[in-house]
């Protein structure tokens, strides 16, 4: 089973979980219809588009409404901590959530009971809180952007908001930041660093750099990092190695972006629809 957990920006949405479907530009789960916007819904949509190409089953999702007040996130932490062991997942992708160390530790406790241990992927708020909790090395893949890499490299910062200036000023020196993130054990086994150039890193060593096609406008478009994490997560679930999945995922995300012929005002839903075409162009 492939599980995705995260939030949607609707304060009134309860915790919902189950197999998800994608109809037009809406996710359908139970009786809920959720529009594809930046954030976890974009990640799920990109994951589904990837799985469809390989005719694989759709992911099982945990989604809750939260607009930053933390009430939904609290329910999500508790539910994951209690129920994750029931599913025997192969891959779990954790996404937007309000960082809370106590909540994260409940989930980690649940994950530690799983045998075999699933492949663990974290992005966004869940990546922040895993670092804060000191469990980065327990995870297989983080997908930070450059600002978030500087945060991982800063052993003192509890959130990217507090990343110290000397690290942010140095953010073009990827090698130094990577070395520092691993030195202080604030990186997962693999890193996929998203940016103008995508870096694939394993245990501190840069394995590959993907920079083609280069579409500068994608940096401004909210959700392009989410779609990348969704594509890579699905490829790992399908059976690609982490390194292969990161490389193919980075290329597919860039190509889907290029196919959409975007401007900085393009919205992520337009790019998601090009993922199958980009995947087929690259792989078949």
């Amino acid at each position, binding site marked *: 089973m492939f599980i995705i957990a995260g*939030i*949607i*920006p609707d304060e009134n949405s309860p915790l919902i979980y189950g197999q998800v479907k994608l109809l037009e530009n809406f996710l359908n789960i139970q009786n809920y219809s959720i529009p594809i*916007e*930046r*954030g*976890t*819904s974009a990640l799920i949509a990109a994951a589904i588009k990837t799985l469809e190409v390989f005719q694989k089953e759709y992911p099982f999702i945990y989604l809750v409404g*939260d*607009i*930053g*007040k*933390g009430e*939904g*996130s609290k329910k999500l932490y508790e539910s994951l901590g209690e129920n994750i062991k029931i599913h025997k997942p192969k891959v779990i992708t954790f996404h*937007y*959530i*309000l*960082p*809370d*160390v*106590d909540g994260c530790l409940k989930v980690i406790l649940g994950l530690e009971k799983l045998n075999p241990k699933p492949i663990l992927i974290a*992005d*966004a*708020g*869940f*990546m*922040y*809180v895993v670092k*804060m909790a000191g469990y980065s090395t327990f995870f297989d893949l983080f997908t930070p*952007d450059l*600002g*978030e890499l500087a*945060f991982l490299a800063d052993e*003192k*910062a*509890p*959130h*990217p*908001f*507090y*990343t*110290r*200036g000397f690290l*942010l*000023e140095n953010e073009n020196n990827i090698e130094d930041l990577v070395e520092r993130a691993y030195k202080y054990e604030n990186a997962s086994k693999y890193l996929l660093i998203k940016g103008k150039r995508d870096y694939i890193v394993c245990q501190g060593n840069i394995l590959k750099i993907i920079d083609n096609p280069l579409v*500068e*406008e994608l*940096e*401004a*478009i*909210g*959700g*392009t*990092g989410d779609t990348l994490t969704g594509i890579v997560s699905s490829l790992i679930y399908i059976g690609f190695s982490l390194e292969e999945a990161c490389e193919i995922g980075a290329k597919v995300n860039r190509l889907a972006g290029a196919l959409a012929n975007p*401007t*900085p*005002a*393009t*919205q992520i839903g337009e790019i998601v629809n090009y993922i199958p075409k980009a995947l087929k162009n690259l792989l078949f």
Partner: protein
Amino acid sequence: MKFFKKGFFKKLRINRKFRDYSKGIIIFENTSLVIKAEKALKSAGYQIKMVAPPPIVRKGCDLAIEVPIIKALSILEFLKMNKINYLDFIPCNKEDLLKPVDIFQIKDFGKYLMVRAANMKLTVDKESLTIVNISGGGCPDVPYLASKLIGLNLTTAPQPKELANTLCGYALQLAYEKIKEILCLS
């Protein structure tokens, strides 16, 4: 004499630094309350700063308000009068406190301008001043802020901090202020 050796004064200086508790921090239940308190205190003319609480009281996505210790009583009274609930006031060594980012990355796309503060990016159309995209971030109010602000005019849209509840939301506020400054709108 041994007392006047360099090492003695160095040690004395370090000890004095260690005891420098001229600042304190006010802790709140959540970031929304911190943002509310900041707005009220700044409007009332108090000199305050946003900081991260020291690790011993940190629980996650935290923001606190640093105040001069000599003003603490009047500030706490002000918050009570304005019904802004705080959890605690803690005297702090200045060295324990981390400051918010103050470095910005600016990218000019021609028709569009993007400003990044920490992990948050805000992009506007330079001619129409429409907010066209919000990206980055990992806290749950980021998709919410995007859904509320994209498509609005920079000059009339609510400030991100009026809707924000987390540090990512507050980082977006910094990007918003910077982009207004660059476009000579502040």
